[in-house]
């Protein structure tokens, strides 16, 4: 028996009904680029470590020598869910695609995310316009 053409795989692998977290992040990256007319660019970088996949969403400022700020990170195992969303000092869990979309919506609407985008837009458009809050000094 000639086993050269032996293929033991199933005829198809079933329907893939879930969108990957990386794909959801890439859509947000694309949306950021479009919403800011390219003044800022979204970028997703993925890596795997010890069985965990990490996808980081960066905000890139092309006019600031391609400065990159990691806004958030989504991590998951070989299955897409549960996934963990790391954002600023917070960590959230998403148990399915709807959870992840809801968590990302919350994060991207947060004051911290707005602060980052506003500061980078401001700095990109006019380097002199970057301002800070007037806090009290501890000294």
């Amino acid at each position, binding site marked *: 028996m000639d086993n050269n053409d032996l293929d033991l795989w199933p005829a198809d692998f079933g329907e893939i009904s879930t969108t990957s977290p990386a794909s959801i992040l890439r859509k947000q990256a694309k949306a950021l680029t479009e919403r800011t007319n390219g003044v800022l660019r979204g970028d997703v970088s993925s890596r795997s470590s010890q069985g965990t996949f990490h996808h980081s969403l960066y905000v890139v400022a092309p006019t600031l*020598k391609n*400065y990159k700020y*990691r806004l958030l990170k989504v991590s998951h195992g070989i299955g897409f869910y549960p996934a963990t969303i790391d954002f600023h000092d917070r960590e959230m869990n998403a148990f399915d695609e709807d959870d992840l979309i809801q968590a990302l919506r919350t994060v991207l609407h947060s004051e911290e995310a707005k602060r980052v985008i506003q500061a980078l837009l401001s*700095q990109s458009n006019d380097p002199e316009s970057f301002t800070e809050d007037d806090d009290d*000094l501890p000294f």
Partner: protein
Amino acid sequence: MRPLVWLTEELDTEVLILAELGASPRRFLSKLNKLASVPYHWTFSINTRVHLFTRAPSDFFVAIRETPYISIRHIRLPAQPEFLLTMVHLPSQMFVDSPSRFGEISELATEIAEAEKSVGHKRTLVVGDFNVSPFEPALVSATGLHAVMTSTIAEKGSRTIRGRSYSFFYNPMWNLMGKESPGPPGSYFYRRSDHVSYFWNTFDQVLLRPDLLPYFDRKSLRFISEIGDSSLLTEAGVPNSTEYSDHLPLVFDLRLQLGD
């Protein structure tokens, strides 16, 4: 503010890196420059956990990659070798468990590798509050920062594990730990109520790639426990967090013009 200014004047500090500033950097800069004999500059940064003030124009200290815990600067001073300055203030041990701290350090290693790739060299220095001790796996592991205790090992550049190459950092902080080291036994004192307590911790560290070692003045590295006649320690001999800070300042010289 005055003790800090006194310190910068006394040490002729070219670069001042501060964590937990508790104020806007611009206001801080304004107050600093009212007292300093040589004015400092602050550079644009999204990161709010660690700030850099420099006597050289801020254009030479451009941020190229940042996360909420990391700020990587591409330092290009005139007629001097360029290098990467990575400033960190990683999550506190009080809020993040050991595996998560390892994860953060791995992220840091990835960010540094990407930055080194983008500038095309490995003259990299990492400094700040790591919230991890020099002997913890996150700092020592090849998949962490791969920071070793002797420059002889670090100068080999990298080592290969199961077909993958990992670059070294040299961690000179091993020389500053313990009672017999010059200066205080560590930079941060914390008495845990658990079975394991190190009491003195060396969370504030500087790590260097071997390519930067020729410029590093090893003898200059120290923790500061006194400013003039004032001690930064309490009568019990631990950092005076009420009047100054719960961390002691870390000082070192990087002599970019060899032969200075």
